[in-house]
């Protein structure tokens, strides 16, 4: 019987300790945010959606059609096509299948002109799978409105 009483006493102590901890947690600052209304700050390095920033003066992006991002992509979700030769070479297709993309960032890393960048945006859900095929216009539109300063993305100044 003495063993049982000791056990009861131990249980009561443990209960008191547990309640003390939970009540101290009650008065601490909250750790959660109300997600769709409030959002957490995300890091400047965030692997968000991909975009091709446009230079506002010329209206062109930085892509030199070197096909490096297409080659390095592990899930082969970038598709580039171009016509013409030499200086007249123009981009006819720059598609990213965002449903295949695994946000590894290798394309951003290999790009020699910082034409393809991550933007700190992550809400890409849609009801139609076809919407996840991002064409060149989509990628231009997704880009940040201010021109991305050269070196910021690559050198990770932030």
């Amino acid at each position, binding site marked *: 019987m003495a063993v049982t009483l000791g056990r009861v006493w131990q249980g009561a102590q443990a209960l008191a300790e*547990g309640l003390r901890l939970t009540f101290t947690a009650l008065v601490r600052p909250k*750790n959660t945010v109300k997600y769709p209304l409030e959002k957490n700050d995300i890091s400047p390095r965030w692997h968000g959606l991909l975009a091709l920033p446009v230079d506002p003066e010329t209206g062109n992006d930085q892509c030199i059609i070197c096909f490096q991002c297409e080659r390095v992509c592990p899930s082969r979700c970038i598709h580039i096509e171009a016509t013409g030769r030499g200086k007249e070479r123009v981009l006819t297709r720059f598609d990213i299948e965002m449903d295949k993309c695994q946000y590894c960032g290798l394309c951003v890393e290999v790009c020699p002109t910082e034409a393809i960048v991550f933007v700190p945006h992550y809400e890409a859900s849609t009801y139609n799978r076809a919407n996840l095929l991002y064409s060149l216009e989509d990628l231009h539109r997704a880009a940040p409105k201010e021109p991305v300063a050269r070196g910021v993305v690559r050198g*990770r100044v932030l």
Partner: protein
Amino acid sequence: MALRTEELILNLGPQHPSTHGVLRMIVTLEGENIVEVAPDIGYLHSSVEKMMEYRTYVQSVSLADRGMDYLAALANEEALLRAVETLGGITVPERAQWLRVIFLELQRIASHLVWLGTWGADLGATTMFLWCFREREKVLDLFERATGGRLHHVYFRPGGVCDDIPDGWVEQALAFCDEFPGRIAEYEGLFTANPIFEVRTKGVGVLPRDVAVNLGASGPVARASGIAFDVRKAFPYEKYAEVEFDIPVQQAGDCFARYQVRVEEMRQSTRIIRQAIAKLPPGEIRAPKIPITLRLPKGEVYTRTESPRGDLGVYLVSEGEEHPYRVKIRAPAFSNLYALSEMMRGWKIADVIAILGSVDIVLSDVDR
């Protein structure tokens, strides 16, 4: 007249919420007692080893992140790159090695926190789940600031790491190291002396030392059975030879011992992070002249690392191409999972979830 009894075969999983993924267990019961447990795996097979044969080494890093153990992505990257760097004779710069040590230990803390939280939820302690994930978010914030990803980072590259840590990162990491031991004390306050927890875990699911050796168990499961083996000490890689830490060992081999080992490991990881931050030298973070399509010389290599789940080995055969000829991953969770039937035999059906949770399996690591 004796009652006529017969054995009952019960199917647990693969969609059971407590099986931590898609594990199916075929449990043979004699009344309430477990006669035999046969884990049936393969529901999360993603064929990572085969896919790596068609990808370059840099591309395989992103695959190792998600195809293997998704709770410890950086530990997988390290395991793969240990093999690549050993075979290619690539020397990683000092700073990158220290950075890798810091990130691997943060990953260990994050992984153990998921284990502790979900195991607590299995045992009915929802508070534990919420508290552990609260601290894990802080680790993931640290990851996000440095690598850009919270779970899948693609941060390590052959010959170094992708980016240097941003300004203020070290202070944030040190602040976490200051805060975290107090949080571990809170977890212990909830669990260690709790009689309900003791009854459900102490003496339950004992894995004897010799059985653990025979089954190839490793990591915290083996250390809880009295095997003082840690790859970080036995075969030091990166800078683990230059930091001081203890291997927590328990002799009991039960669920409670596995809990004690993991909690102590989190403390030791904090200790390693502090030392690594103190010793972090300035300098290069990437070995120069490593092409993005790296070709390794012809040959084969086996390297082992200590992932949060145990001894993670990679056997890599190269034929001199851009991609490996064969990759074999020795997954720690696989070996630990097969110690399960030894642990569960003779216990009651109600203990199945407690024992399964204490092993800390990740099915994506088991199936690969």
